């Protein structure tokens, strides 16, 4: 059962070939068998999952099922889940049982999906390797000595290892696309405002966006259809109808104009990754697309701008963790300041502290104009680059990451090297655009991701373009050895 895609699983459930309870038990068994090695889950809630599965079976029997009814889905542990531990992979929230569910979780519940558990991630989504998790690193199913990427590393690894058919992620600087690339799965970061952020623990509010991690574009289309939509409770959600993302998957892409930013193919890009991306572009040429070189001249400023905007917003957002209302509290505080400092000092890991401190510094008296304001201006330059590009081309393509999965521990001592693994994904967040990563081959047995960037709200086009590639290639169908 673990090798079926969502469409096949939904058809099997409807035809009565298997029940949601059987499917859910099969997932739970795979998690029990394999997750000791991968560590992709922080919480597996068997009881809740089986209750939801039985409820789904009743809906299926009554003929009231939607496309995801009865399908097991894993939630990144950044989404609040009513009555279920929600840790954000931090000691700070080690004891936090959320008193409400995120909009995304409510939407999956309403669709009748089964929440199988909560996936591991970098602490508060700050990281690119899943090594900042308080619950230990996740291992990449393609090679357990390498990282799965981050921050949604648990979700990507669990989907790649076929422990669950689908999972959610969040992407602030590449946290869906980069682990999707490193684990050989399909991940989509929607347009800023497309998916509600309500109940998704905030890191950098002007960049954060939730999205699906799945085995194929077709599966991602089904998931996004459930996740997307306006929400009164998210002040930056955009009120705009949600199209049927599956309806346009089969559209012909002859005549599609693909832009290749020359800045994404320069120094730092590993040769094997470049070759895989070139081969994918040849495939698109055979499908009738036209490939042209473009320029995004402010690309080199994206990582510097990001490391002002994201830490500044993080320092503000994470001020809520004060040891008073919820979360970790130190023992025997002497006074209020001691309570704040020790609760936060003990509750947060090093990377989170570094980002809070960079943000605090950038926003402190006298520095606001030089850092935050400057970065917001550079953000506009970056967005304008994309706007000019989309006057000439329909989509932009390039590598998702400069290299395939790196080794555990390889970059943990040097934050800057780690930050540069998001060099091709970060600009998309700064510009608010949708971006998708899909498997485009392998280098030395490790997956390579092709990134497709679209204009605002062009998720349907990204999914269509990705799906057409997946009709003529089988990289997305490859399963890591030991997980067949």
């Amino acid at each position, binding site marked *: 059962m673990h090798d079926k895609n969502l469409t096949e699983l939904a058809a099997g459930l409807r035809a009565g070939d298997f029940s949601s309870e059987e499917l859910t038990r099969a997932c739970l068994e795979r998690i029990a068998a394999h997750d000791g090695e991968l560590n992709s889950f922080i919480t597996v809630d068997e009881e809740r999952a089986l209750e939801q599965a039985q409820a789904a079976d009743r809906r299926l029997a009554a003929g009231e099922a939607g496309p995801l009814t009865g399908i097991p889905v894993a939630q990144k542990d950044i989404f609040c889940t009513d009555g279920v531990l929600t840790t954000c992979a931090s000691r700070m929230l080690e*004891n936090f*049982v959320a*008193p409400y569910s995120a909009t995304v979780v409510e939407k999956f519940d309403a669709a009748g999906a089964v929440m199988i558990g909560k996936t591991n991630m970098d602490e508060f989504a700050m990281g690119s390797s899943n090594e900042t998790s308080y619950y230990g690193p996740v291992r990449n199913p393609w090679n357990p000595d390498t990282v799965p990427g981050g921050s949604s590393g648990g979700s990507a690894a669990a989907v790649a290892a076929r422990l669950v058919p689908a999972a959610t992620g969040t992407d602030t600087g590449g946290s869906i696309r980069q682990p999707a690339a490193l684990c050989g799965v399909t991940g989509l970061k929607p*347009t*800023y*405002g497309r998916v509600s952020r309500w109940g998704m623990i905030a890191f950098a509010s*002007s960049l954060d966006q939730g999205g699906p991690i799945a085995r194929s574009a077709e599966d991602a289309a089904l998931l996004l259809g459930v996740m997307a939509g306006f929400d009164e409770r998210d*002040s*930056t959600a*955009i009120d705009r109808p949600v199209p049927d993302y599956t309806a346009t998957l089969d559209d012909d892409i002859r005549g599609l104009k693909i832009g290749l930013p020359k800045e994404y193919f320069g120094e730092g890009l590993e040769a094997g990754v470049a070759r895989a991306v070139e081969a994918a572009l040849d495939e698109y040429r055979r499908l009738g697309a036209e490939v042209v070189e473009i320029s995004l001249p402010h690309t*080199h*400023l994206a*990582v*510097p*701008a990001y*490391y*002002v905007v994201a830490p500044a917003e993080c*320092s503000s957002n994470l*001020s809520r963790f*004060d*040891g*008073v*209302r*919820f979360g970790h*509290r130190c023992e025997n*505080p002497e*006074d*209020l300041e*001691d*309570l704040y*400092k020790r609760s*936060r*000092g*003990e509750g*947060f890991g090093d990377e989170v*502290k*570094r980002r809070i*401190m*960079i943000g*605090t*510094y*950038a926003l*402190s008296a006298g520095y606001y104009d030089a*850092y935050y*304001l*400057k*970065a*917001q*201006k*550079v*953000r*506009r*330059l970056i*967005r304008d680059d994309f706007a000019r590009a989309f006057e000439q081309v329909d989509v932009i393509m390039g590598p998702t990451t400069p290299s395939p999965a790196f080794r555990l521990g390889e970059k943990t001592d040097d*934050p*800057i090297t780690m*930050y540069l693994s998001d060099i091709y994904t970060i600009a998309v967040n700064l510009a*608010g*655009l949708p971006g998708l990563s899909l498997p485009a081959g392998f280098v030395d047995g490790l997956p390579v991701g092709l990134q497709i960037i679209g204009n*605002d709200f062009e998720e349907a086009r990204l999914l269509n373009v990705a799906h057409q590639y997946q009709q003529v290639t089988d990289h997305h169908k490859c399963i890591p050895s030991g997980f067949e």
Partner: protein
Amino acid sequence: MSLDKHEVERIAHLARLEIDPAAVPEYARNLSNILDLVDQLDAADTEGVEPMAHPLEARQRLREDVVTETDQRERFQAIAPQVEDGLYLVPRVIE
């Protein structure tokens, strides 16, 4: 931009973070490196560029001034470290 030990301690205080004194030099080194990376922004010509607050230029929505929340105090306080009679407890602030 290079931060010294005292600046790191000042920032940690502003952020209400306790940092192990032995770890301060490493924080100073890492934070200085990050600020060096960020300083590349100085080279960008942003004369006359409007800062971007929202990618789609969306403005904050207003809603009707009506009550939309229900009272969930007990539910929210059930997960608090220390409460009494519906109040959150912290160490005494006024002697």
